[in-house]
């Protein structure tokens, strides 16, 4: 009897062990590597967006894969890509071979993302890009589908579309000026930072404005991306008699420009891309002088979809900052969750097939990927927005009645009062 008791206990132990192993198996997390320059705001955006989504998904029970609820575990991967490309490649490699991540999201500097993309493709890992806008990243998918099919770009819209929105905003402001100020032919000054990404936009503007949009280009100015003084350019623009100044800035010069533009009250409405004015600290940084600056943007407190405002508010509450386009990792995680659940596995090929079929509402719009695995930009899909600073608030001013699209909460664009005063007949 004693001997039997011993066997019984062994069986019980084995069963217990198996049960424990089973629970451990059930709880095996899905690992997602968040790639980004973590010491910079772009990387913080990547991490914050992903953390918020992961917490929400885990609180709701995790990702249901084949009847088992698996939590999401995020791996913070500091790519340091602004300072060192080898560092970025090491980081991506570490995430894959050390941390054994199942998926990757993030990335910012195109040169680094190109290499990290190759590393991810070598390992056949799904990589959803949230930061680099260059079309080449998705052209690779079209050129060599079998190799690059694991790559998708979610945010921002690619630079070609970015250019389109840029011109639409310019056209919108021009129409408003013509209507309210009774101007006939508008004069536009082009100002763009001296960086190669801005070159195609400048080139397009120089030809498109006179030929297709019926405006006169009074000159092109190219200050350094880190210029601390733009007064020379601004006085020249004023002397040239420009009604609109078409901006293309991604660096700190955007801040300098906006501040001095407001201080000098240059009678030309500032429209275009100004990444600095997408940040919530812009108002303080320009001491309010950057009011009326209009820029292409991804997020503002506006109802792009039902998810946008709750996302925006929660993000602002948690991180004391408005989300920027690298925070698109939030949507990326939800897309991955849905794809994994539908595929019933984390197998990359099957997940890719599901993401290709994905058609869902995210925080930035209706998210569908095209054949090159780039996010679709069109009315009714992701459109991006135009945001303007009005009385200390960043508000959405576009789209309003654009191809039938108006976002609830969007307010009319306001011309700077000194521009109205100067040009009013």
């Amino acid at each position, binding site marked *: 009897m004693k001997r039997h008791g011993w066997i019984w206990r062994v069986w019980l132990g084995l069963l217990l062990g198996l049960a424990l192993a089973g629970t451990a198996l059930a709880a095996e997390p899905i690992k997602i590597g968040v790639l980004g320059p973590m010491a910079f705001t772009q990387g913080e955006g990547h991490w914050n967006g992903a953390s918020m989504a992961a917490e929400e998904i885990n609180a709701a029970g995790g990702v249901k894969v084949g009847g088992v609820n698996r939590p999401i575990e995020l791996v913070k991967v500091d790519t340091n890509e602004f300072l060192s490309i080898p560092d970025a490649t*090491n980081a991506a490699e570490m995430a*894959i071979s050390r941390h054994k991540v199942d998926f990757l999201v993030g990335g910012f500097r195109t040169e680094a993302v190109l290499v990290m993309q*190759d590393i991810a493709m070598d390992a056949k890992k799904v990589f959803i890009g949230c930061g680099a806008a260059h079309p080449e990243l998705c052209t690779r998918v079209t050129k060599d589908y079998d190799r690059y099919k694991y790559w998708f770009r979610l945010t921002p819209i690619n630079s070609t579309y970015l250019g389109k929105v840029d011109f639409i905003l310019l056209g919108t402001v021009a129409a408003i000026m013509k209507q309210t100020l009774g101007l006939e032919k508008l004069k536009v000054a082009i100002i763009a930072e001296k960086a190669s990404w801005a070159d195609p936009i400048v080139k397009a503007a120089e030809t498109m404005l006179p030929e297709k949009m019926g405006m006169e280009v009074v000159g092109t100015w190219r200050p350094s991306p880190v210029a601390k003084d733009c007064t020379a350019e601004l006085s020249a623009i004023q002397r040239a008699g420009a009604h609109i100044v078409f901006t293309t800035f991604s660096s700190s010069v955007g801040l300098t420009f906006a501040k001095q533009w407001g201080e000098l009250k240059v009678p030309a409405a500032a429209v275009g891309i100004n990444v600095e004015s997408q940040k919530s600290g812009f108002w303080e940084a320009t001491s309010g002088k950057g009011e009326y600056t209009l820029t292409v943007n991804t997020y503002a407190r506006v109802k792009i979809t039902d998810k946008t405002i709750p996302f925006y508010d929660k993000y602002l509450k948690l991180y004391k900052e408005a989300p920027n386009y690298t925070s698109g990792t939030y949507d990326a995680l939800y897309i991955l969750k849905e794809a994994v659940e539908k595929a019933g596995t984390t197998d990359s090929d099957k997940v890719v097939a599901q993401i290709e079929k994905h058609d869902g509402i995210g925080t930035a719009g209706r998210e569908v990927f095209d054949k090159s695995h780039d996010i679709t930009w069109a009315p009714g899909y992701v459109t991006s927005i135009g945001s303007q600073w009005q009385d200390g608030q960043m508000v959405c001013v576009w789209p309003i009645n654009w191809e039938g699209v108006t976002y609830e909460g969007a307010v009319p664009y306001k011309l700077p009062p000194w521009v109205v005063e100067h040009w009013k007949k």
Partner: protein
Amino acid sequence: MGMLDAYIRRFLAVLRTEILVLPSRMAVVVFVLLLLALPLVTQDGYVLRVMILTAIFAILAASWDLLSGFTGQMNFGHALFFGVAAYVTALLNLELKFPPYLSIPLGAVGGVLTGLVVGIPCLRLKGSYLALTTLAFPIILLGLVFAFPGVTGGELGLSGLSRLTGSRTGDYYLITGLMLALGGVMWKITDSNTGIILHAIREDELAARAAGINTTRYKLLAFCLSGFFAGIAGGLYAHFLRLAGPSTLEVSLSFQVIIWAVFGGMVSIYGPIAGVFILNPLMEALRVVLERFPGLPEMRMFIFAGLVLVTLLFMPEGLVPWVRDKIETECPRCKIRNAFTRRRCRVCDAALD
């Protein structure tokens, strides 16, 4: 059989009398053996990648030492040779479909020609003037890279180069082997007559000229040699990462090279190599360690800089010479180095202090 015996006996004799007598030589042998054995211990893609990049940068740092350490031509823009070779290699591989075994050496020739182009105007300059001028060249080239995006790919660089060997282990052995061989060649150059002349130019150029040495020619030679080795590193880098981008020309890379070389110990060739092999994996180790502490990963660069500063504060000559002085003593009479454990010189039997 007899011959093999003789060879083995000779090898053992060399091992006993030349290598095992000095800790520094033993360290080199152990280092080489460890490097060669690494893929047998781990096949971890991350570890091999880190070590491959380390080996590439080791060639770069040693080539800087050849020019700036030995010849005293302070070069603050060493990324120029590296970047030019990376771009030349990429263009040859992508446009003319040259395989890596042709594109890399030709890229290095690009490095040599750059050495000539930079060397000729810079030869008239000395000290800080030379340093500042060399600093300008990669910045000028970076401007050109952005000015002609059709050729250089602009901000994106040139990507999609063919792979070196097709396997990580293959790449590792190829690049590590090349690093050891090129390191050996550079060390041999500094040990040759040419090396002594380069050394003389650094110590007293006027005296070297008075001794009938055409110092201009030798300085130009140093620029070209350094450009060649840095160029090989650039070509390997481009093929390994499959990308030649503007980051290969950035000022930060030029300074990184100096940090590695000064940390390891200048004027030695092996010092900069050791510097890279300590600092580069250390940066990665810091990444792994700091991951466990939330909020700290962003401090990696700061901690790294702090470590380098503290090391140089206590070891101004660099780490390797400092360690070498601790484990070896120079004989006051015959100047031969001895293990620190010896009381009397292994050659002349003089008493060691």
